[in-house]
């Protein structure tokens, strides 16, 4: 899948929030990609645009999202429905909010199964669906699936809810899984379990993954390539190890430096300043007000991705390329 030059804004009472400012992202078949960035930089917006489940007040101002040769943004309802049912799926950040509180698990799961696996060709019987529900829950290592099926979401723990969401998403995905901070809202002890579960399932089914997180550690152990996002732009992309060992963009450098270390001396510094106001974003490179290396051109024009080493390490910064 490839996202090209995506511009998305939100209409609010404060004005127009120009959140996405020309986002570019590529995921190959079977590839695992990570997406890191602070809260509010537009990661979730980008991913929602892929499945076209943006909020009602969002406007897509430009760009395209190509999946298997077709542009998702221009698909009709039928094609879009097919994408959602069979190809691309998403795991949300807050499993409590993602499950309808007034329905039992088995109702929701049955519907998903019925619409993604059972198609017009085979009519699924109740027993068959029930069987598949149990099977699917087993795959996410949920103990006592019968009891879980008969429960309401609020009766289950956070970890269990997320597993259910994962189960539901994976019945609907053959190609691409988007995981939006799947472990952020869980207890630390559960985080590792769930992350490992996702990893295993992805390996088994050979899915492509986009893993969003603001926990650098989670991303590092899981993906092949990492994108760094800031204020609506991708600022750097590289192979995981390369990114963590040789960060090139000033923002990435600042980010990696901010992580508290157990060894060494002193406190971490953090990056001065704060994320920009999306109603009046800074012109040119949106990071320039916080950047120690800002030049004249940074204030005027948004830098494109510059390929630095010919092997896929790209940086959107005027320090590494010219117009």
């Amino acid at each position, binding site marked *: 899948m490839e996202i090209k030059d995506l511009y998305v804004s939100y209409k609010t009472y404060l004005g127009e929030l120009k959140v996405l400012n020309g986002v570019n992202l590529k995921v190959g078949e079977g590839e695992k990609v990570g997406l890191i960035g602070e809260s509010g930089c537009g990661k979730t917006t980008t991913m*929602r645009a892929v*499945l076209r*489940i943006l*909020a*009602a007040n969002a406007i897509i101002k430009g760009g395209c999202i190509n999946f298997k040769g077709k542009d998702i943004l221009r698909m009709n309802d039928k094609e879009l*429905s*097919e*994408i*959602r*049912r*069979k190809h691309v*799926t*998403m795991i*949300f950040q*807050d499993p409590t*909010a*993602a*499950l*309808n*509180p*007034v*329905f039992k698990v088995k109702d*929701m799961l049955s*519907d*998903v199964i019925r*619409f*993604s696996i059972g198609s017009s060709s085979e009519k699924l019987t109740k027993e068959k669906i029930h069987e598949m529900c149990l099977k699917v829950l087993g795959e996410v290592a949920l103990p006592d699936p019968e009891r879980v099926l008969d429960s*309401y979401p*609020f*009766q289950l723990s956070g970890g269990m809810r997320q597993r259910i*969401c994962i189960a*539901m*998403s994976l019945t*609907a995905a053959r190609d691409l899984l988007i995981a939006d901070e799947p472990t952020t809202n869980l207890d630390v002890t559960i985080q590792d379990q769930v992350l490992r579960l996702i990893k295993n399932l992805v390996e088994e089914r050979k899915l492509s993954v986009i893993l969003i997180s603001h926990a650098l550690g989670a991303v590092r152990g899981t993906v092949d390539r990492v994108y760094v996002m800031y204020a609506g732009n991708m600022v750097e992309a590289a192979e995981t190890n390369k990114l963590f060992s040789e960060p090139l963009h000033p923002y990435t450098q600042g980010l990696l430096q901010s992580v508290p270390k157990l060894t060494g001396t002193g406190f971490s510094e953090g990056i001065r300043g704060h994320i920009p106001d999306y109603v009046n974003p800074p012109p040119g490179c949106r990071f320039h007000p916080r950047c120690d290396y800002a030049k004249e051109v940074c204030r005027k024009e948004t830098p494109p991705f510059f390929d630095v080493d010919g092997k896929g390490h790209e940086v959107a910064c005027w320090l590494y390329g010219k117009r």
Partner: protein
Amino acid sequence: MRMSTYIIKRTLLVVFSLFGLSVLVFVLARVLPGDPVRMMLGPRVEPWVYEQTKKQLRLDKPLYEQYFYWLMDVFQGNLGYSILTRRSVTADILEYLPASLELIFLGAIFQVVGAFLLGVIAGRYCYKWPDNVVRVISYIGISIPAFVMAIILQLIFGHILKWFPIQGVVSRGIPMPPKITNFYTLDCLIAGRFDAFLDVLWHMILPALALCLGGMLQDARIIRSGMVENKDKDYISMAMAQGLPERLIMFKYLLKPSIIPAVTVLGMDIAAMLANAFLVEMVFNWPGFSKLGIRFLLNTDLNGIVALVLVIGIIYSFVNVVVDIMVAYLDPRIRLMERGE
């Protein structure tokens, strides 16, 4: 807590409230100025008749004893004697109340169906023209009191357009069936008089509409805003992301959480209808409990007033319990979570 426990708890609460209500109403009636015995018998009566009647009505005993006896009477179905008509109040109420109840019932049906349709349409076409039309109409409709609505409806659809009758139960020329249950519609059906049945229904439409329009529009708004609010919730996004068909999402997953607040309000709406029936019946000359109530009120017939208030209180509480149970059924969080969680 399970459903049955919840039901029992609710009912007990209601019973308690009703007891309190009976005390309140009773005290209010007894404490006020005015001598009921004098009012009943008139000024020119021998002293011994006065004393005898007073004894008979137990008005010579202390207040709490009076209350106790009164309560016993109530449980036996004896709500006292109307000072004016000398008849048993229970008989009076049984004669007139069913007519109001059937009006309210029709109104309730209109309200539920109407609110549902309008709310879903407004939610579906949110921010587009059907939604705006519904919202504007709602604002206006909610602000019009029921009795004003009754007058307006009567004027437009009764007098001017002549689509519906202006008042009464049956049209001239159609003989009324014998009163058995005191429900006009049922009596027609029992007597096998289908023509009268339809005629009565025709007479009921305007008053029922007047009763329910305010509540209908309010519920429609609640349903609509519920749908709009829940549309952006994650669980709907998730359902969309999973590719579930739009119809399914809207009518199953979006609808259920959205109607819960409306159902909660339903109890209060029925209460409003119980109260407004009084006024609307006056406008349309429908012989329901308003006929009785007015007689009682304007003549300060205390027994009558007390009994009427109590009966209405019971009906209202009953409706509330039913509504609460319905809400608990729809929203599992309410019945399964302990207080304070």
